[in-house]
């Protein structure tokens, strides 16, 4: 039932936002997202460790086609549900000082988006998964296009068509798998795991899924929509896209691709892995040369998620566990980063590196906070990024040492471009002396300090998250290694 409540809550608050006066919209959205957070935390408390999906609900939806409204939470879902629940209040609060035109529509779309995101992470029926997967697209499209910056219309339309194109091929694969299920066909994802597909079928299905998820993540060379979209999107839109939405792609790889087409992954996974690694190096190098802070962050995000996807394709316990925890970490870090860049832009009216400088001198507290988040995202030991990247690289190393060597460049390059950013923006002379920036305000601290605390807590005690996912990941590997042995439950 908790799983259902996770969906009902955003829906109810979307309706509230639409019905109540516009000057309340932000508060309603904030209350709604805080309640969602509480609920996902409650789901965590209720969640008993193990590999079974729990707190579930299964009602027939479209019975003539065997489609069920089947939702449930296992460890892999839970970590992303927690991420969504956790980040949403911050993302809503981050808009506190931004003047948003037609706030009613904006916050209603944000909450509707939350419904879609939660749905993707807890759906156990492939059709339902697909519907939620697409459902997230419309709100985020409108958020980025209407409230976005210059040229947002063509850029977001490209993003929209691009991602939809990928997922339509996934739809074909899903329908194909549906007709492969025995007896009265079913869309249950579990039953897709033991279909005994031939090698050719596995190849096709692998690429159909890969296309969908590679565009969403994005993996090189399907990333071309991403930097533009992140740059023009409003801060909240970028946070949603980078913080949560791209995790849908990685989640899809883990939930659908690995267990459904293990032979396909065995045959083609290396190709995908190489693409991921090319993306890591390529995006890091481009990030190094960026002047626009948001764009820099967009490219660094490609590099980071490339590493996560590479860890998934390594298909071993450390790679997958690393992917799980790093998904969470990346969400936290990137939301904090986008918020801080938005903060700089609000104070100085620009986010161009050569127009900025000496920020640390004017805003001491902010300088420290930025440093903590920065260290988290470059993966310094005792921050959250370290444990994630360490596990990921270990996983890739076990798969292939050479690949790990190239993937490891992300640490060096990441440090290079992030410290370049810090040097240009925070150190040196203030460029525009007319601006006297005030240090972080109370409401900004309320966002930044918890996020920093999370970065440190997870860095020191990662087991808190790793324990959630371990049984489910173990089970997944079992299915991957012996696809034809039907495992019980889950």
């Amino acid at each position, binding site marked *: 039932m908790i799983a259902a409540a996770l969906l009902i809550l955003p829906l109810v608050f979307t309706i509230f936002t639409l019905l109540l006066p516009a000057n309340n919209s932000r508060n309603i959205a904030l209350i709604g997202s805080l309640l969602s957070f509480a609920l996902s935390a409650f789901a965590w408390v209720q969640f008993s460790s193990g590999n079974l999906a729990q707190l579930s609900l299964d009602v027939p939806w479209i019975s*003539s*086609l065997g489609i069920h409204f089947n939702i449930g939470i296992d460890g892999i879902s839970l970590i992303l549900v927690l991420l969504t629940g956790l980040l949403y209040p911050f993302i809503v609060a981050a808009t506190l000082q931004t003047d948003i035109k037609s706030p009613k529509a904006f916050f209603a779309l944000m909450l509707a988006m939350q419904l879609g995101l939660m749905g993707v992470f807890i759906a156990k029926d492939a059709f339902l998964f*697909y*519907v939620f997967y697409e459902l997230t697209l*419309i709100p985020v499209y409108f958020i980025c296009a209407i409230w976005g910056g210059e040229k947002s*219309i063509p850029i977001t339309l490209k993003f929209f068509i691009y991602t939809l194109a990928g997922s339509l*091929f996934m*739809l074909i694969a899903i*329908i194909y798998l549906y*007709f492969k299920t025995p007896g009265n066909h079913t869309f249950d994802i579990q039953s897709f795991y033991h279909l005994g597909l031939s090698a050719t079928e596995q190849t096709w299905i692998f690429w159909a899924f890969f296309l969908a998820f590679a565009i969403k993540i994005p993996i090189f060379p399907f990333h071309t929509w991403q930097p533009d979209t992140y740059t023009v999107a409003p801060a909240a839109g970028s946070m949603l896209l980078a913080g949560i939405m791209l995790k849908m792609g990685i989640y899809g790889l883990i939930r659908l691709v690995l267990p459904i087409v293990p032979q396909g992954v065995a045959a083609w996974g290396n190709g995908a892995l190489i693409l991921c690694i090319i993306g890591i190096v390529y995006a890091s190098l481009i990030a190094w040369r960026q002047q626009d802070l948001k764009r820099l962050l967009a490219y660094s995000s490609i590099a980071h998620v490339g590493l996560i996807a590479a860890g998934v394709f390594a298909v071993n316990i450390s790679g997958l566990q690393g992917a799980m925890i790093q998904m969470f970490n990346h969400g936290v870090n990137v939301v904090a980063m986008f918020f801080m860049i938005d903060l700089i832009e609000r104070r100085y009216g620009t986010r161009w590196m050569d127009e900025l400088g000496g920020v640390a001198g004017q805003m001491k507290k902010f300088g420290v906070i930025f440093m903590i988040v920065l260290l988290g995202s470059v993966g310094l030991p005792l921050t959250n990024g370290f444990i994630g990247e360490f596990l990921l690289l270990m996983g890739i190393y076990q798969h292939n040492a050479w690949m790990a060597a190239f993937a490891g460049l992300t640490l060096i390059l990441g440090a290079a471009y992030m410290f370049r950013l810090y040097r240009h923006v925070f150190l040196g002379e203030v460029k525009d002396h007319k601006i006297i920036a005030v240090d972080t305000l109370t409401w900004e601290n309320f966002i930044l300090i918890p996020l920093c605390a999370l970065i440190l807590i997870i860095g020191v005690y990662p087991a808190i998250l790793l324990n959630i996912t371990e049984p489910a990941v173990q089970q997944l590997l079992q299915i991957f290694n012996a696809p034809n042995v039907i495992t019980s439950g889950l």
Partner: protein
Amino acid sequence: MNVLITLSIAGIITMIGSTFKDRSWILTVTLSALAISCYLAGAGWNSNVVFFDAMRMDNFAIAFTIVCLLAAFILSIIYHQLNYAKDAHYAEVYAIILFSLAGAVVMVSFTSLLMLFLGIEILSLSLYILAGLRKKDLLSNEASLKYFLMGAFSTGFLLFGIAMLYGATGSFMVIDIAYYLGLHQSAPEPFVVAGIIMLMIGLLFKVAAAPFHFWTPDVYQGSPTIVTGYMATVGKVAAFAAFLRLFQWGFAPALVSYQFLIAAVAIVTLFVGNIIALYQKSVKRMLAYSSISHAGYMLLALMVTNEISNGAVLFYAIAYTLASVVAFTVVAVLQEKNAGDDTDAFNGLSKRNPMLAITFAIAMISLAGIPPTAGFFAKFYIFSAAIKDGWVWMVAIAVINSFISIYYYFRPVIASFMKKGSDETINISFVMQLLLVLLAVLTLLVGMLPDWLTGIL
């Protein structure tokens, strides 16, 4: 049969009514006739009444009849709202609509090829007249003439095909033809195949599939917008139902001999419809090309004969009708305000009338096939039917076309939400608002709870 009688009597009454000065009662008569027909059709569910070996009101026929009647019902009200005050031929329009519906009913329920021919002609003749409704407008005249010439041409094909099949099988009955084809399954005679192909060409004209689509854009653009909406929904749905009925029950034994032809036509139709639609400035013309492309999707279901293909076409027809009625209505309202039908006319629509903008956006999202709208499930259903029989590559082509279509469907939506237009608000009557909201809500509801529509055929 009682549906036909009701419609015809009401048609005659409204036609006589055109001689009176007072015409306020005409809409009432039309709507009650449509409502009664709907009820009569629905009452015959599961009874499979046969009329003199000419028509059979089976569930298939009833379902498509009701779709046509309801679409006509809504469009009649909208036509009244927009044109009551100024149309000199107000009463005749309703008379023709009622007669054309009689044609549609025959088309979806025929059991003999002669009835198919009659139905098609009744519907088409009515549509020719409706297209030329604005008799002082050159475009409307062009539309009517073009439609008539092309229609007459395709009728030739139809008749030729029917004659050939009669020559081979000695019967007009669909069942007899199916029986004959079943006997000669391995090697059907060449002129039987030729007859089937002739009939196919005639019907492809009617559903506006490429390369027989050339009349569509001009006719759709020239006709009064609500009439276009009527052609695009009732005309198309009835033609598709007839197509499906004939090929699913008559020609299915010879499926292999024409399957690839339909596949080829479907591919051409999809690409022609979608790619040309990309380049249209006029939204009305864009909708015309989009309707061509939708014929392409529906053709996928004609290539297969499995238990879900009929249901899939019905569902597609419903989803397409719901969205098209909204789309054409919004275009008609904008034309009414002298804004024209270009994409620019939609600029700032969300400020001028949010309700119009939102319902139009939902209609476009549905036509583009994005969840949670009816259009998505319709596509999903059609794709499932095709994949079930192994046509994965055809579905891949359809999918490529699906995302081409997003570009042009979103253009007016983008214009209405993100571009600046005039500040003058657009007011529409309460009834129109109610209808548009109802249709938009139905589009969403059917998309989210498709179960009550999927199982019926």
